[in-house]
């Protein structure tokens, strides 16, 4: 069996490092204690296969594990598998499972459980299109799991290791559990003790957990993970002020999404540590290119030239942002600044000239936004003013988030011209997951009569089908440049989400989920 380059890279990352590294595996400086985490959003279910919400992922990914996941920089790594080999023809992926893994119910994990997990995901998993190109899977022995492809898919590993709606491994006897009714038994460092929807989820340390010795430290969603504390309780505290009050009183030991207005007072409090999580999401507006005058490239370029991203992002985030060209975060290997000359132009004279060229006749322009996500509303408000400043008759249409999404998805809609959104999970997953938003048949693409821009489509196909990672990255850079130059999207910058912990909580590093492995309470 011959390894593909990507697979070899993964193997090197997953298995090669221990031999190179000299550091000892992580050990808890102290054990015991309880942590209460204030979570901003409600959790309906802990069924990670059928929920796409961040709030579910926050909790469930401390409980469940997958064959492959992502590291600190969102690169694919092995988790429940100790090795993965891709056949030379790209049609088979063979996973050897890590020995000695047990579920929280005490049952040893085998390939039958992995197969059952794939079966359930293929039946009701929210993103089961991940498996559309998979012909089937086999379990030649209890520790081997084989995925057979219909045709080679160079990006399959990227999709398989996605943490958006991951294929978590569950005991085979739970295969037929209904949607949102999955019994919460995984292989992760924490097991579920109690779940009261709308109130809290309490997790306890899983004493039989076996860390992944291919690593020395926690990384991303995986790595060498150890539960140091006895329990972690995720308490739902939707009101930001109440989260801050809970942190100040010590009722909460960690919180997410600290409002900017509270930061000064919290910084003065020596019992609290502020932890900014940069690159949480990309603030973005999507032009409706099916609707005149936005179908006119000069009009779109006029808008692009008028926008000052600092003002927009400042209003959107209360100052917690980074300017950022394009569709990836700067800390990612896939990041490119291709098309940077289109970003943050803020030149009213140029914008007015382009507007004249477009033949714009003061038609009302509708900016579609919502108040459910204040950053989107605030960004839309400033964008409206900047468009008015160059003579565009821009108006806001404010609805709730589900309504705005539905309106934005109607083909050839004439109800709106710019739709405000935020992309968080997809940019973190990589270029492929992000750029799917800009080609059909994705729900957020809206070319006239659903006819794609052929050059953008060609770049997208290259991103998917080129055999080497370098060629795919080059295709991504091309696609980003074209999207920005043709103004099919207006990314404003990346938003920083602020988390905070009591100072005696150690080892907590902000990430896309609050990770409580390798976190301890200083006594």
């Amino acid at each position, binding site marked *: 069996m011959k390894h593909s380059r990507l697979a070899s890279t993964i193997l090197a990352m997953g298995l090669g490092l221990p031999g190179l590294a000299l550091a000892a595996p992580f050990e808890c400086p102290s054990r015991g204690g309880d942590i209460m985490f204030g979570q901003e959003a409600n959790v*309906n*279910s802990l069924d990670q296969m059928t929920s796409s919400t961040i709030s579910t992922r926050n909790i469930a990914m401390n409980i469940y594990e997958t064959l492959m996941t992502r590291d600190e920089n969102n690169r694919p790594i092995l988790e429940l598998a100790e090795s993965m080999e891709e056949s030379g023809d790209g049609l088979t992926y063979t996973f050897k499972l890590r020995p000695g893994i047990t579920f929280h119910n005490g049952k040893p994990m085998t390939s039958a459980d992995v197969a059952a997990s794939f079966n359930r995901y293929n039946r009701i998993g929210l*993103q089961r299109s991940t498996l559309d190109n998979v012909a089937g899977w086999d379990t030649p022995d209890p520790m081997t799991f084989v995925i057979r492809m219909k045709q080679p898919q160079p990006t399959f590993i990227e999709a398989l290791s996605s943490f958006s709606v991951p294929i978590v491994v569950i005991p085979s006897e739970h295969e037929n559990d209904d949607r949102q009714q999955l019994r919460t038994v995984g292989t992760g460092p924490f097991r579920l003790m109690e779940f009261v*929807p*709308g109130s809290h989820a309490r997790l306890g340390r899983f004493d039989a957990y076996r860390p992944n010795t291919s690593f020395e430290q926690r990384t991303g969603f995986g790595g060498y993970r150890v539960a140091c504390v006895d329990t972690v309780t995720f308490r739902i505290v*939707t009101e930001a002020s109440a989260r801050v009050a809970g942190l*100040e009183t010590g*009722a909460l030991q960690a919180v997410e999404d600290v409002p900017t207005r509270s930061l000064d007072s919290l910084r003065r409090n020596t019992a609290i540590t502020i932890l900014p999580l940069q690159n949480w999401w990309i603030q973005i507006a999507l032009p409706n290119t099916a609707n005149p005058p936005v179908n006119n490239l000069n009009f779109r370029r006029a808008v692009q030239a008028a926008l000052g991203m600092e003002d927009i992002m400042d209003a959107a985030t209360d100052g917690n942002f980074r300017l950022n060209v394009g569709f990836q975060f700067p800390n990612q290997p896939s990041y490119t600044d291709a098309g940077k000359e289109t970003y943050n132009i803020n030149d009213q004279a140029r914008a007015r000239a382009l507007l004249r060229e477009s033949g714009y006749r003061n038609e009302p322009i509708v900016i579609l936004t919502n108040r459910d996500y204040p950053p989107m509303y605030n960004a839309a408000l400033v964008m409206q003013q900047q468009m008015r400043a160059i003579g565009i008759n821009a108006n806001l249409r404010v609805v709730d988030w*589900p309504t705005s999404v539905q309106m934005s*998805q109607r083909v050839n809609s004439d109800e709106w011209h710019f739709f405000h959104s935020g992309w968080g999970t997809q940019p973190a997953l990589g270029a492929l997951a992000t750029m799917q938003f800009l080609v059909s048949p994705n729900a957020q693409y809206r070319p006239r009569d659903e006819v794609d821009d052929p050059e953008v489509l060609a770049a997208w196909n290259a991103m998917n089908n080129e055999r080497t990672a370098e060629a795919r990255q080059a295709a991504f850079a091309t696609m980003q440049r074209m999207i920005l130059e043709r103004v099919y999207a207006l990314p404003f910058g990346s938003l920083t989400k602020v988390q905070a912990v009591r100072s005696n909580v150690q080892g907590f590093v902000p990430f896309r989920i609050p990770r409580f492995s390798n976190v301890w309470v200083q006594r």
Partner: protein
Amino acid sequence: MIGVAFRRLLSAIPVLFIVSLITFGLMRLIPGDPAAAIAGSGATPAEIERLRRDLNLDQPVLMQLVDYYQGLAQGNLGRSLLLGTGVFAATMERLPVTIGLSLYALVFTLLIGLASGIIAALRQNTWADQAAMMFAMIGISVPNFFLGLLMIILFAVHLGWLPSGGYVPFSQDPMGWLQSLAMPAFSLALLQAGLLARITRSSMLEVLRQDYIRTAKAKGLSQRKVVLKHALSNALIPIVTVVGIIVSLLMSGAVVTEALFSIPGMGQLLTQAVLSRDYPMVQGGLLLVTTFLVMVNIAVDVLYAVLDPRVRYE
């Protein structure tokens, strides 16, 4: 009396039918696709369509309505799209929390509202009257959300007397329940207490001017007896009617309070269900809440007849 209650129950059936129909219609009329909401922003149209089929949302609206009423006739409120559990079970988990909070707030409302209303009436045009009415005005004017925040800062952050949020079930720890709901109940109660104080004051003033009160005083009865036995019992008649409405207002006000104090009640459940377009949860949840409120109002009607022998329901 049983006949009155029975007739009231029968008249509640069309009310509940109309509520269920309006809720069903409104949920279908407002834009927003539950399948798209559940699938998340990264979903493709094919995935959304597949989920729509999984959830039976691809059926014509009329079919969905027929299914809904068939289910209701069998006592089945359906399954929540978001929770995956039965609507009845989900509601029964949350409704007692909201009812508990509302009743706790009602106790505060009655204590504060009645006491300040009576004092204001008895000391009409004195500083006590002015103070009581100013208090009532503040209660009516200050949003309970803002009051709740102030209370958290004072009683949780600075004084550390009460928890800043969270909920302790009564069955687990009655004292913890009282503590965890003290601030939410008080902040919820203050608005209604202000309202009740003003109504109590005007009702008491009207009764206190009646001839039989003058007669009672002339007979040499003590002030306490005149107020509590003769004046208050008669002034209570309009007040009891208002209490039925106050219970409804407390339950709807709980939506904001529950969010602020992280209480897993109906308010949070229904808000989230509406935002996610969880049709069965909104329809079933609202129907059960309406049923509860109808029951409260029937109880008030019956109580009204008990308090005032002149009232006869034909």
